[in-house]
């Protein structure tokens, strides 16, 4: 199957979903293309476009929560970062994503508990 065609299809399928969540594709085209390509590779290997930056486990339910776009399952965390974990999507109001940092989940959870 054609890698470029699948990348285009994932863009087409994801765009309206993340739009309703207040996100958009990362404006840095090189990053977006690289991440989509990684997702297509994962999809071709495992059947799902998993997040390329999060580890899969033996827990299928947990793995389903990192199938792209995984924003609904990590909403508060990603909203705090203004980006999703891998950076494929950023908040709509972000024009320069270079300054957006990842907040490790344990740090985010700790901060939110206190």
């Amino acid at each position, binding site marked *: *199957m*054609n890698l470029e*065609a*699948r990348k285009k*299809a994932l863009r*087409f*399928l994801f765009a309206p979903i993340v739009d309703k969540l207040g996100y958009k594709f990362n404006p840095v085209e090189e990053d977006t293309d690289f991440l989509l390509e990684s997702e297509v590779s994962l*999809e071709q290997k*495992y*059947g*799902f476009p998993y997040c390329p930056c999060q580890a899969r486990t033996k827990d*299928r339910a947990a793995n389903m929560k990192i199938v792209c776009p995984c924003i609904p399952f990590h909403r508060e965390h990603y909203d705090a970062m203004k980006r999703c974990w891998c950076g494929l999507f950023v908040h709509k109001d972000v024009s320069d994503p270079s300054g957006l940092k990842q907040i490790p989940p344990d740090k985010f959870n700790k901060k939110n508990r206190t």
Partner: protein
Amino acid sequence: MRTEAAKVSEIAPGGMLGVKLNGIHLAVCNYGGEFYAVERRCGHAAAYLDRGTLNGYILTCPLHYAQFDVVTGEALSGPIPEAPASKYENPAAPQLATHGLKTYPVTVEGDSIMVDL
């Protein structure tokens, strides 16, 4: 040979219609007001594609969710993976290759959707 497949009013945008013309089964798709015709049988396990869903230009098979581009006929993805811990044999038949679909030129003449077979 051009043959009438359907009336324009019969297929709403985002809709599909399965037709049989001169012995050839086709799925006629309306993508944003433009009509496209592809072979009706899925390139994976031969299910009727017009019973699936059309999301933009992406046609998803109702049986194992393989996806195709209705404009080019290209296969975009294969069947979904096996359900985990199932006692049944994998129904998605991953050993089958997913082939692209044959496409047919379509023109609209008046109220008729004409397919060149």
